């Protein structure tokens, strides 16, 4: 089952340790071999050039954009109302008017599947965004200052790691009476931010030893400025890659939890819930399983592929 730590394995972190921003080159004249002086050697602009022509990245970008649009304006994809259900249509097979058929309650399955994107994307993006902010703030402090605070945080993350995500998710969520968007997101953030923190902290540890950080410090920059103007742009790369992949992982995790019945509850429209509902009738109505399963897999695939392509493009060693 997808787990944050496994996403880390996909990331296979190599902390990027070359000066990224042009601003840093302003402050620190670092003699480099290679491109003649004056040429901007920004890792991101090189990466972007490569990404633009990579078919895998473009596919993933297409998928991600597709799902974001689907989440924000589902009306573009379907005019039916996912909640307008009529029992007379119960379990009807797919037809030319209703592409995905109907579910047990007689709701238009196509509409439900499309609307299901909304909550998945919302949870995926917000959990990762929040976890990333937390990880960056705490990771900066922990990595840069070290000391007892760092040890405490390290111990805490150790304890967190001891509890596998799904298990922890099941236990915590089953205690909450109401499980809506906020509760599920909250639990996923709690279970996931330690990994991101560790990742960023390791990155900070590596970057802070770099000469340009030392130089900035010698020039009298404040800690805050160093952390956010110099260290952050360079240390953030593995986190960005990991974040892209993690959105996919979170979407899958939410679906898994909802499937088990401890995630979102009806009347929320979630792919996991839909698949859960399809369990007992797979044989008669496989379309109930297939369509949300397909979209779910595509959404996860899009994000993971994006993270993967990003990682290849941002790999400073090139090929």
């Amino acid at each position: 089952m997808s787990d944050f730590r496994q996403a880390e394995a996909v990331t296979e972190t190599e902390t990027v340790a070359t000066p990224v921003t042009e601003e840093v080159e302003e402050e620190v004249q670092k003699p480099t071999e290679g491109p003649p002086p004056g040429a901007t050697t920004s890792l991101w602009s090189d990466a972007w050039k490569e990404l633009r022509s990579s078919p895998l990245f473009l596919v993933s970008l297409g998928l991600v954009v597709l799902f974001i649009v689907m989440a924000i304006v589902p009306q573009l994809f379907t005019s039916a109302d996912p909640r307008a259900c009529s029992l007379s249509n119960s379990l009807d097979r797919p037809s030319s008017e209703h592409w995905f058929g109907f579910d047990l309650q007689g709701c238009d399955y196509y509409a439900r599947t499309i609307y299901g994107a909304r909550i998945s994307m919302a949870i995926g993006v917000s959990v990762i965004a929040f976890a990333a902010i937390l990880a960056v703030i705490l990771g900066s402090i922990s990595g840069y200052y070290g000391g007892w605070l760092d040890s405490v945080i390290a111990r805490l993350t150790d304890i967190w790691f001891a509890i596998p995500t799904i298990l922890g998710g099941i236990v915590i969520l089953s205690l909450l009476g109401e499980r809506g968007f906020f509760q599920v997101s909250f639990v996923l953030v709690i279970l996931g931010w330690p990994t991101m923190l560790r990742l960023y902290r390791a990155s900070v540890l590596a970057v802070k030893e770099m000469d340009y950080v030392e130089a900035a410090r010698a020039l009298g920059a404040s800690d805050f400025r160093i952390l956010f103007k110099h260290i952050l742009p360079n240390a953030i790369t593995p986190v960005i890659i990991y974040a892209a992949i993690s959105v996919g992982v979170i979407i899958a995790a939410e679906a898994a939890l909802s499937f088990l019945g401890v995630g979102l509850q009806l009347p929320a429209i979630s792919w996991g819930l839909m698949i859960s509902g399809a369990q007992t009738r797979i044989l008669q109505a496989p379309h109930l399983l297939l369509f949300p399963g397909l979209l779910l897999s595509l959404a996860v695939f899009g994000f993971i592929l994006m993270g993967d392509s990003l990682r290849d493009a941002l790999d400073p060693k090139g090929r």
Partner: protein
Amino acid sequence: MIRRVLQFVPVFLGATFLIFALVFLIPGDPIRALSGDRPMPASVQQALEARYNLDKPLWEQYFLYVAGVVQGDFGEDFRGREVTDIMAERIPVTFKLAMYAFAFEVVIGIAAGIMAGLRKGGFIDNLVRISTLVVISIPIFVLGFMAQLLIGVRWGWLPVSGLGDGFKSYILPAIVLGSTSLAYIARLTRTSLAENMRADYVRTATAKGLKRSRVVGVHALRNSLIPVITFLGVDLGSLMGGAIITEGIFNLPGLGNAVFRAVVQQEGTVVVGIVTFFVLVFLLSNLLVDVLYAVLDPRIRYE
């Protein structure tokens, strides 16, 4: 090394306390849930509470619990069955499932990773890259149902429910359980090997006139497998989570199934008992990986 073993203890205590606290802070009264809608005389309720230590403050409950665990007593569920009995009955099933999945993912994952890593940029490499991403993207329950439908029902090759067919019953669930991890292992092996093949010591080994099979199989592979082994330790945790789902789909009477039902039925003791067991297994496997790491990589031995 001793340090690592010692670190294990507070982490274990911390994690289990966390779970314990969470479970027993349940809003809602399990005693009352036991009796359903029938009113319960106060005296009976008090007696039950005393029996399950529910009348004591939380931290005391926790200490009594740990004391019990250390002596092998995981408590009882609310119907009086010893949790240890429940676990004893179900551990073999989950254990077998996990072991088969593990063997499957390690053997095929590493093999695929090696093939892909050696021919970076080639057809097999791209095939492995994309197919592993696809497998990772399909959630385990979707995979499980599809496998059930196609392989089990429509084509009838393998059994899909219960333990009726002995070993054969485990095949499909093990494959489903291990597939996501297999994908991760293949990718990790591939990247690690490809990277190591460019390392200086590989060049030296070639310059020494060694056969390529030896350069790759002995020199490069040993270094490459170290991150894979680290991953395997962590993977056990996700295998346990996946087992919950897989046992549900394929109807196997294992620990995963049990913990899930206990959660739904608010059987706090069972949940804590089984999850504690899982956490213990997970921590121990991580510890084992740490030790193994030190055995494999002499550079970190004398930290």
